[in-house]
Each structure stands twice: as structure tokens, then as C-alpha cells.
């Protein structure tokens, strides 16, 4: 049938195939990892091979946020606002140690200890900074996630479900710290692991 020009597929498959091959990342740089991201967009590593070369300057036109670099507490409300302004379906890659966990600045008073305290993260790319190939691998993981995403049922993405919200609260600047210091619906402080005999 395919030779006759008839293609049989499901709607979800062709929909996911389409969006996985035209990801538009947000043009958004926070710190030194942004240099690596720019490198990925340039000729040598060439993110255009994956259909993701159109870095949009407006969050309204983007569907992938690459959190590249240290997120300071002063920057965080703007980051969450940009995330809220992006239209669904949207994905988030966390790039590098700082954005994943605070990195070397984790004990600092002014650094968010991981952006996953405030916005949902799809793929973590470790490294300090990650190699461009690592970011491309992260992008391929996002593509894989997009292709396998069901559009209906209990595993449907949040924007197709009634019971979840796509709006994430923006923390306020407090007198000593951000208020609240993390989004308790997204992130819980991990329990200590008590090892026997230690």
C-alpha cells in the first residue's frame, strides 16, 4: 500500500513525528553553558541536523527550554515566568551541574539548588559544562520522549489532562530567601538515607 502512495498511521504517531523533528528551542542563555549551547547551534555540531536550529527569541514561539547555566535567585522569577509563557506542549532540558543541582555554587546564598525545584524537568544533561555532543544526546532523548508520548489515557501529557495545571507559581523575593524556597508540588526534600552500620 505504501508503494501505491497510501500511508497508514495513527494520528498520534504522525503528530509526534512532526513535532519531534521541528523543535524550536528558546534563545535563552544564563551562564557559561550557554557558550556550549551556541556551539551546538553553530556549524561544527549543527543542531539543525535534528530540526531544532530555530532558536526563538520569544517564549510564545518556543517549545523547548534549555536551562543552561547557574540560576541565581534573582533570576529565578524571570525563568519561571518565561516557562509559564511558553505554549504547551513544552519541554525542558537542564544543562550542566549548576542548573541541575546548584553545582559548585550549591552552598551559596544566591543560587537556586537545581531548577527542578520550580519547573518540571524532562532531561538532565550532566557536565560542567557538558560537551556539545552531550547536549545533542539530551535533545535526542527529548525527541524520543516526544515520539513515545501518548495523546490520550492516564499517561497523556499534562496539557491534555484536566487534573493538572500548566501554570507554575512564581516565587516572590523575600527578605532572606525566595518565598517559597521551592515548589512543594514539584519537589520534596529528599529523606536522609541511613545506612546500616555507618
Amino acid at each position, binding site marked *: 500500500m505504501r508503494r501505491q502512495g497510501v500511508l497508514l498511521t495513527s494520528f498520534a504517531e504522525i503528530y509526534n513525528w512532526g513535532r519531534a523533528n521541528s523543535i524550536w528551542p528558546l534563545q535563552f542563555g544564563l551562564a557559561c553553558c550557554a557558550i556550549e549551547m551556541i556551539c551546538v547551534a553553530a556549524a561544527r555540531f549543527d543542531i539543525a541536523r535534528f530540526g531544532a536550529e530555530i532558536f526563538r527569541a520569544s517564549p510564545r514561539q518556543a517549545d523547548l527550554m534549555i536551562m543552561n547555566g547557574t540560576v541565581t535567585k534573582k533570576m529565578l522569577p524571570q525563568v519561571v515566568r518565561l516557562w509559564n509563557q511558553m505554549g504547551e506542549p513544552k519541554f525542558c532540558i537542564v544543562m550542566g551541574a549548576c542548573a541541575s543541582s546548584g553545582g559548585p555554587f550549591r552552598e551559596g*546564598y544566591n543560587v537556586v539548588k537545581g531548577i527542578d525545584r520550580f519547573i518540571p524537568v524532562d532531561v538532565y544533561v550532566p557536565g560542567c559544562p557538558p560537551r556539545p555532543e552531550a547536549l545533542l544526546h539530551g535533545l535526542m532523548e527529548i525527541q524520543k520522549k516526544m515520539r513515545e508520548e501518548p495523546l490520550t489515557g492516564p499517561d497523556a501529557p499534562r496539557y491534555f489532562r484536566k487534573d493538572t495545571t500548566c501554570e507554575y507559581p512564581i516565587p516572590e523575593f*523575600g527578605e532572606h530567601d525566595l518565598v517559597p*524556597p521551592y515548589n512543594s508540588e514539584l519537589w520534596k526534600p529528599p529523606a536522609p538515607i541511613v545506612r546500616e552500620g555507618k
Partner: protein
Amino acid sequence: METLEQIRDRIVAKFGADTVTLITNPGPSAQHSLLLVAHAARDIARFLHDDPALRLDYCSNATGVDWPDKEIVETVKTTQPDPAGGPDKVVETKTKRIQPGCLEAVYHLYSIALKSAEPVIIRMRTANRTDDVTLPSLTPVWRSCEFQEREIYDLYGIVFTGHPDLRRILMWDEFKDHPMRKDYVGPDDYEWEPTPHGEVLERAKAHYPTPPASTSPKSEE
């Protein structure tokens, strides 16, 4: 370029003996500096900037230093004659006193016009660390001090009078603390870490009960 002693002597001759002190640095860098009295500092800075032999027209760096209250133990040795006729006894009396702390602003000055290689370092000190924390701003003299004095105000809490735009520059406006002060306590958003050490370990103990001690007998090695 004149030596720091010569500069000091000229300042003393022009502004009075109590306006400047030479602070020597005993370290290997031997970067000595001039401590200016706050009320005369603006005029002295203008003099340093305009004087034809100095022409310190460029302030490359302005920073703050926090000197917390320091307890100083002084030991005085006195000899007491032994009534029994023996050798004199040496009695040590220790007196403790608190040296009050202060906040300090340090400026590194160069002359571009005279191509100076070594900086002339000037300092100013506040009266204390709590309520009297004002210093004259040197931004009217060196424009490059503007952002750096804002940073000192933000992180150390020194209030610069005469600054054109004294706001916080790094932290947000609602922030109340001064993080670079030695007694600053950061927000307690500690979470469990697999390998806590040092200060983090102390904070971890406050958050979590200590793990139960090992009940299994240790191998004798």
C-alpha cells in the same frame, strides 16, 4: 611616583595630622595603604586626583572588608620579689578586651596620565558595624566607583553619603541581609547530601538525627 610616606606627609601638611594614618602590610606583598578619616576623605580624594605630582585619575577597584569584634588577650609579665629570698617570681596577668569591629572600604588608585605601575591604596573605616555605617562616597571624584560602591553597600551594608544612586546591585531590593559580612547566616534550605562535610555536616546534624551507631562488631584489624 612619590612613596606612600611622602604622600602621607603632604596630606598631613595640607589637611592636618589626624586625617591620615599609614597602615603597613607585613605580608610579602607589602602593599601599604593610607587610612583616611571619613570626614576629610572626600577632600583628600580630590587632592589625590588633582595634584599634578600624583594625578591618580583612575580607581580600578573598590571593595569592602568586614572586621568583626575581636577579643584580644593581653599578657603582662610582672616580676615579684620572693619574700623568702629566692629568685624573683614572674607573674603573668591576662587581660581580655574587645576590640570593636568596623567596616572598611578599600580603593586602589592608579594614574593613567603618569603611567603608574603600583596602586596607591586608600581605606576608610566606619565607626562600628551596626548603626553608624556611613562613609563619604568617592563616586564624585572617581566615576568608576559608582557600581562598586553599590556592591559594597549591597554585600557589606556601608552607606555611602553623596552617592548618586545608592541601591542594591546584585541582590534584590527586598533583601535585608548583607551576605559578605562575617556574621551572615545563609537561608537554611539544606537538603540531604550523600557526602556532607565541614559546615554542611554540622548543619546536617541539626536537621537529621544522627544515624544509629553500628551494632555489628567491627573486625579487629
